[in-house]
């Protein structure tokens, strides 16, 4: 019986630990994505992600609006963001970021600006 209890407790600890660890990783990825966004993207795309950053308001065409459902309805939106960051597009220059960093940005954009529906 004691063995059973120990087994169950160990299992709970393991599962709980795994969940906490995973949450921490997600939080750290989210923070990483947020930091990169604030440093490299926010000046054009804005604090709210709507393309109205200090450098974005006067751009023509305007920067992408991450709060628009239309943006997220595009096919392969992750690939679209990755390609744009890596290669640049129009006024937007390319950014020399690691693939993991781009993934963190995409996660941050999706969690923060993507309309809930």
């Amino acid at each position, binding site marked *: 019986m004691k063995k059973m209890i120990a087994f169950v407790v160990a299992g709970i600890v393991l599962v709980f630990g795994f969940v906490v660890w995973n949450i921490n990783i997600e939080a750290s990825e989210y923070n990483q994505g947020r930091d990169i966004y604030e440093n490299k993207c926010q000046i054009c795309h804005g604090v709210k992600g709507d393309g109205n950053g200090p450098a974005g308001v006067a*751009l023509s065409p305007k920067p992408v609006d991450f709060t628009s459902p239309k943006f997220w309805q595009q096919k392969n939106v992750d690939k679209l963001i990755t390609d744009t960051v*890596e290669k640049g597009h129009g006024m937007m220059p390319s950014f020399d970021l690691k693939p993991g960093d781009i993934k963190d940005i995409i996660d941050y954009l999706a969690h923060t600006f993507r309309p809930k529906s």
Partner: protein
Amino acid sequence: MIYKNLRGITALLGIIGLLTLLALENAKAVPSFARQTGMSCNVCHTAFPELTPFGRHFKLTGYAISKSDKPYEFPPPLAGMLQLSFAHTNKAQPRGSVDDNWATHATSSDNNIFNLPQQASIFYGGKIYDHIGGLVQGTVDGASNTLFLDNTDLRYANNTTVAGKNLIYGLTINNNPTVQDVWNTTPAWGFPYAASSVAPTPAAGTVIDGGLGQQVGGIGAYAYWNNLIYGEVAVYRTAKNGITEPLGAGTTTDTVVHGAVPYWRLALQHQQGKHSLELGTYGLYAKISPEGSTSGPTDKFTDIAFDAQYQYIGKSNLFSFHSTWIHEDQDWDGSFDLGNTAKKSGHLNTFKIHGHYTYRSPIGDFGGSAGFFSTTGNKDILLYAPDPVDGSRTGSPNSNGLIFELDYQRLEITKFLSLKCSLQYTLYNKFNGSHSNYDGFGRDASDNNTLYFLLWFMF
């Protein structure tokens, strides 16, 4: 009096130095524009100082884009620049042609000249308040041993919507026609971006091609619609006196313009993905007093120019092409009466074309350039008279040649230091009218071929 001036200069330098250190303390990138926006230098520049589309946008919006939403930030956006150079000409210039001072040293053969520094500058570069910003450059020039207000461009800019598209509009106050321009085709920011200040250069040049730099001050209004059409009109007056005098601080005003000098600019730009193409025209009309006088008959110059630029900006591969053609009509009403010209009128045509490739690698940007330049015009035996090195045996202003350049650029070596190294070779086919014995004193055009090495630090 001298002691008092020295004390003032020392105090001023001390304040500037302290403010620069404060600015560097908060440094994230370099120089002050990068610090202000939080962006890397290569967002705005391909090969420094050539601008990317975003760099043009940053300049047109008044250098005021900032990661901060405060209208003013302390410390002020200060930056510095140091240029150290070496020039080798095929044949030495006569002794005394180049000032031998604390910054300029010729070896015993007289054709190897070190310029240490060629220039040292402090910039105020960035937002001043809200929608007002500027690029103000104070320079110590080694060859001329002078301290002066260099290129200066103060702006107010804002934006609105016209016909459903964005319109950037603004005002510029500057001291060099074309310094306010955002394409690297016009003279102030055109190729070569740096050159030896001690090697011989052809005698003839149009007024708009540097002839009025720091000699005038002016104000212009501009508008840029839909990232497509740019228009600007400006008016300049002499920096010798009056309200524009501060814009020529430290520079002797020996080119005195009379009345207003109108300047215009019109450009069309089309951007498609990584490609951008610009076609434009610019020009000015100036009345200039001969021999720096402030009264009497004047010479009149009408400059009309066309320019084109193409840029491809990929992730690692960047290519740009620039070209400009300037036609100048000259009326020598003042100079002819004084016996300085043999003809009452004349003309000059200058043509420049240049291609540049940059490869961006993890250890820096490697680049190469090739350019062709040509000046042609009518002969005038008094205007272009025989003289050792600088003169013309034939009275012709015609010169042409090639420029080759290799660059290595490392932006943000540390958080506040960037470096560009350039190795440049200028090859003259014709100099002041001839290929050989062009000056009437036995000097050939190829004797002025110049090998130039530059270390350019930005911080």
